[in-house]
């Protein structure tokens, strides 16, 4: 479901007056499967291209060579994709010494060498987008292999400004990029999350144990699960201002990516958002057990000691010596005590029903016919 929502949002593009939807795909070291985040990236790329003839992609390749991507896609899609080659010669080392032969590169790959100059970078992407537009593709998506590589060459505000300019441009209908969260400060990651409309992150299924305190041996075997599955957390910013949170499982089988849904954990979010009420109506389990253990006054015959009723006027020690203090068994005992000192009085109390809840509104005198 999450994957479907993402692909649909990227394919549909934006409404007039809106910025283009942007997906930020994050991965991190704790999940070994996150090294396959590239597989997720390629999966999204393939899904977008296969949705119809209208969608085309401009792929900015930093991490792998453009021919790698072309070999992954079937030849029918080669016309709908344009690659900006930032992998072969990002620092212009080769072109400075040996200018590249012009006829060597295939038609849909454009070499870019001066990555420091971002306006030129932007205009190259837009040029490719217009090229695709001219061929009849009305929706152009820009995919950036990784923004982490871009940040090596240009400062953060410039990169963000480039992405924002891409989002504002009329020719671009959607945008997605990959970022490695371990290689950047949290401020950088949150800035990318700020400008994106969808954030997808790969998390480990089993958290790494706390080596200082926890029982290590038991948890290490469960870590093996991390190698086959990962959690795919998606946060979508909706048009109505609300946020949709989804959590699914990711499986990688034979190089292809599969998503399966898992019941989401949204109840935690609800509890954190609403301010807490200051009185607690519910009973905890311990409180419930304690209440069950309390014996009501009329249901027992005492534990052999005097019942002392403190009336507030005398100190407790004085009342102990007072012969008029109530003895066990209540008033009825006093009449018989002269005759039968060894015999104790008893009160028999029969409850109406055992399921009657205390504080219930039932008035016991209701059945009186006065």
């Amino acid at each position, binding site marked *: 479901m999450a994957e479907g929502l993402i692909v649909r949002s990227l394919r549909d593009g934006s409404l007039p007056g809106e910025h283009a939807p942007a997906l930020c795909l994050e991965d991190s070291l704790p999940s070994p499967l996150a090294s396959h985040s590239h597989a997720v990236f390629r999966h999204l790329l393939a899904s977008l291209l296969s949705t119809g003839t209208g969608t085309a992609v401009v792929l900015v390749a930093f991490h792998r060579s453009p021919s790698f991507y072309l070999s992954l896609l079937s030849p029918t899609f080669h016309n709908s994709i344009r690659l900006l080659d930032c992998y072969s010669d990002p620092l212009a080392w080769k072109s400075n010494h040996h200018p590249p032969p012009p006829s060597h590169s295939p038609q849909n790959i454009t070499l870019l060498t001066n990555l420091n100059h971002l306006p030129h970078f932007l205009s190259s992407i837009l040029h490719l987008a217009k090229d695709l537009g001219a061929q009849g593709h009305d929706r152009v998506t820009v995919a950036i292999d990784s923004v982490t590589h871009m940040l090596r060459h240009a400062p953060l*505000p410039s990169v963000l400004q480039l992405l924002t300019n891409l989002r504002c441009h009329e020719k671009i209908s959607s945008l997605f990029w990959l970022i490695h969260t371990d290689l950047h400060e949290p401020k950088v990651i949150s800035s990318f999350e700020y400008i994106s409309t969808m954030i997808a992150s790969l998390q480990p299924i089993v958290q790494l144990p706390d080596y200082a305190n926890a029982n290590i041996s038991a948890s290490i075997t469960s870590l093996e699960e991390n190698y086959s599955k990962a959690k795919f957390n998606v946060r979508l910013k909706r048009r109505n201002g609300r*946020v949709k949170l989804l959590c699914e499982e990711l499986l990688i089988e034979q190089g292809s990516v599969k998503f399966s849904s898992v019941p989401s954990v949204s109840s935690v*979010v609800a509890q954190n958002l*609403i301010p807490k009420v200051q009185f607690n109506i519910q009973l905890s389990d311990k409180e419930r057990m304690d209440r069950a253990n309390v014996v009501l006054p009329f249901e027992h015959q005492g534990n052999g000691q005097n019942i002392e009723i403190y009336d507030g006027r005398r100190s407790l020690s004085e009342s102990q010596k007072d012969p008029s203090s109530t003895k066990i068994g209540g008033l009825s005992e006093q009449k018989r005590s002269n005759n039968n000192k060894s015999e104790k009085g008893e009160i028999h109390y029969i409850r109406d029903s055992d399921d009657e809840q205390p504080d219930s509104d039932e008035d016991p005198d209701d059945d009186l016919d006065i």
Partner: protein
Amino acid sequence: MLEKGLRIAWQYKKYFGEQTAVDSHNRDKKQEFSSDFDLRKPLERQLLNSQNIECISTQDAFDLSKLQNHCLTFVSKLSMKDGINSNAGRIAIQSLCAPQCGYFEKDWDMLSFIRSLRATVQSSNAVAVITFPASVLSNSISKRWQHLADTLLSVRAIPDEDKDLAKLLTGYQDMLGFLHVHKVAQFNSQVPVILDASTYSLKLQKRKSLVLERLNQAPVEGSSGVSYATSGSCSSSKGSLLDF
């Protein structure tokens, strides 16, 4: 129709509150502000180019000195008018620390700008409103920003299609998010401002007007929590029309 001697249970206050707000306070007073606008209409560019409005962008700026100078000249122009200050100056800055801006990594420069803006505004007949995405700032800098504010509000999003929240809150379908009031300005006074409620829900009624409503929950001890269910409407019946 509110009898003062009648002790109303908290659920019923919401039906009476609105009437007192409208009748007793606003009957004879001339409306000096209006919050009655239709949110469906987009903001037109011509409005921003009118005579009393100046619009500048900081996206391409590498530092805040230009913005600071602009604010200073704006405020000094205010005091140069006739002795009676009939117009208050309003400075509104949107997304001040947006990460796309060239000065984004200069944390201390941004802080000193806010401090100088605050000094400028306090010594003149002007107010300033700044919005900023707090998540992109580091914790310590974010705290410093919050301390510099006289009035601090925060807006929070709510999950979409959440069944638990829909059960807990009334009117969940219309809700856009929550508004928390953290601080309220108090000048020249030792008396603290105690709010009835500090959390409001932002609701869009009939897709047209924005309404702030206290969260409909049971009453809570003390002023920090959410209390009675009253709807404080943003829109007023009379007043000058501010049309976008």
